[in-house]
């Protein structure tokens, strides 16, 4: 039996103590749902009481609590356990914890930080992980996220997404900014700023570039921009409209939508620009291409059947198969990195919800219940879906787990849309 399931069984005994909803929300995150059974966990302070500076423990707590998979148990009154001390497992068991993280931060002679941590299973009285990191002080937060990823991996069996980054569009004072931030919304920085709309940011597979659509020339044009030097190039600026970029898994090509020959058709171009090779045959609107992770298939939205639905065709050409059947409006396909799920947006009456189709068993599940959900994008671990929705007339970003059980909302100030999780 895996550690996760053993803990789930154990957690049942603590169910009465588990409060629904908020555990310990991070500074910018609101948890709107959580798993039924959460692993009780203590993350002891890394810094001594009264010490100045960011305590990695705070960041790790915020990360793990917003995942909805952990119940944070406090260590009040038990002081700051030393990273190198023997652990009194019974003491932590008495608090109701199944696992314990201890750590410390010290300054090395050259000014760098020495961050150490150990993760214990206090039920089995064993150490599950222990690492030290000697890093510049600027990487304090990054290391905390990395530790949270490791704790998630050791206790859940899959890596966390806390070290990841997200790109999104911020509409602010009538201007549009393409920003990249840590997955907790911290360290946001602007890579493009424009008085005209910017939409559809998509990460290159190696995370070094973003493709996006800018309206600075009063029409949609596709750009590719390097994140390392900020340089960019218009890679699709044909007559008419140019939009809906999707990277091929090898990063060499983009699938895009163009109006140069017909109203909306799919094309393949080099990621450096150049000629466009047409993929679709015409007669319908065809847009929103998305490659399968193996690069063999292209998922896309088409109204060839009379209403917009998601189809799939071989990238090398050939017949398309319809993938969605329920409802009259199914759009915005996103494929999980492991190739198992198709997330998309479906209209139910006047509402638009994120749904997921399990490509292995063909089952569909609607995951969200807000009214204007759009732009689903998978996390690298294929476990969570990032999407945009509207709350009180303002665009916000939210995530939902593929089983629909854990939801959270990023509350970065401003009007946000078009999120994309970095690979």
């Amino acid at each position, binding site marked *: 039996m895996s550690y996760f399931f053993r803990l789930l069984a154990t957690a049942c005994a603590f169910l009465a103590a588990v409060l629904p909803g908020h555990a310990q929300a991070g500074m910018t995150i609101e948890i709107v749902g959580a798993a039924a059974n959460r692993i009780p966990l203590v993350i002891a302070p890394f810094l001594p009481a009264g010490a100045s500076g960011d305590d990695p423990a705070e960041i790790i707590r915020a990360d793990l609590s917003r995942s909805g998979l952990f119940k944070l148990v406090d260590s009040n009154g038990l002081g700051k356990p030393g990273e190198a001390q023997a652990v009194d497992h019974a003491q932590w068991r008495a608090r109701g914890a199944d696992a314990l993280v201890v750590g410390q931060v010290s300054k090395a002679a050259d000014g760098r930080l020495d961050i150490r941590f150990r993760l214990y299973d206090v039920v089995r009285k064993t150490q599950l992980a222990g690492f030290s990191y*000697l890093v510049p002080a600027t990487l304090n937060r990054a290391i905390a996220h990395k530790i949270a990823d490791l704790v998630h991996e050791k206790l859940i069996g899959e890596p966390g997404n806390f070290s990841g980054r997200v790109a999104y569009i911020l509409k602010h004072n009538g201007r549009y900014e393409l920003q990249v931030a840590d997955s907790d919304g911290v360290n946001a*920085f602007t890579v493009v700023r424009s008085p005209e709309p910017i939409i559809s940011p998509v990460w290159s597979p190696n995370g070094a570039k973003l493709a996006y659509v800018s309206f600075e020339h009063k029409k949609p044009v596709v750009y590719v921009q390097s994140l390392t030097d900020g340089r960019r190039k218009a890679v699709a600026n044909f007559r008419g409209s140019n939009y809906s970029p999707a990277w091929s898994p090898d990063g060499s090509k983009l699938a895009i939508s163009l109006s140069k020959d017909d109203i909306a058709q799919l094309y393949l171009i080099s990621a450096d620009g150049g000629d466009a090779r047409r993929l679709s045959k015409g007669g319908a*609107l065809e847009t929103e291409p998305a490659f399968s992770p193996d690069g063999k298939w292209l998922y896309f939205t088409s109204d060839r059947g009379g209403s917009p639905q998601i189809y799939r065709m071989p990238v090398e050409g050939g017949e398309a198969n319809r993938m969605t059947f329920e409802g009259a409006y199914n759009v915005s396909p996103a494929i999980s990195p492991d190739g198992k799920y198709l997330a998309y947006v479906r209209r139910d009456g006047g509402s638009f919800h994120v749904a997921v189709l399990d490509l292995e068993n063909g089952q569909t599940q609607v995951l969200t219940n807000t009214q204007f959900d759009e732009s689903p994008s998978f996390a690298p671990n294929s476990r969570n879906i990032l999407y945009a929705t509207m709350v009180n007339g303002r665009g916000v970003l939210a995530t939902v787990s593929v089983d629909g059980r854990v939801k959270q909302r990023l509350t970065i100030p401003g009007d946000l849309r078009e999120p994309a999780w970095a690979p």
Partner: protein
Amino acid sequence: MNKIQRVCLVLAVLFLGGCADLKELTGTSDVPIEERGAATTGSAAQGATGASSQGVETAALPAVGSGDGREMAANLQGTQSGRSSVVGVSPEQAAMLKDPNNPLSKRIIYFDFDSDAIREEFRGLIEGHAGFLKGNSAARIILQGHTDERGSRDYNLALGQRRAESVKQALTLMGVKSDQVETVSLGEEKPVSEGHDETAWKQNRRAEIHYLGE
């Protein structure tokens, strides 16, 4: 001592952490180390090197994240549209086209929900522009299609394109040469009304005529 315990002891000495009882190892942390993998199993110790070579995977934290992003921002304020000046209307014509008393100052065609059909009430407006374009072969227009905010932004770009094409088709049937007309879509991105109800949406489902050189 079995073989695993002996391996553990060797690892403990090498890494100053080790998988033996930690109590025995306290007090040795003054020895400088770059990285330590201290775990209870061999597989976890292998994970240590993979997960944190040199203490941190700086490659996963690109420099762009730690620097001042504003320096790298491609600031687009003031970019020019770069259109050719060979074609387009003259300044005099531009002034005439904008005169509120001139029917050609009316430029917006509205559409029903999920429709690209041109309503009868806009036929006169389109005929007026067709007449001007036929009489001025250097004149060029851009037809912008727009949608309301509901649904996918990319699919709305396709729907907006269809609205612009619908107006272009009406113009060409009236005798306008197709190379005088470029159709583009702005989808839901440039609403006239920012509201979130049908009153706003019906103002936003539209096609707009823009003359080059205005």
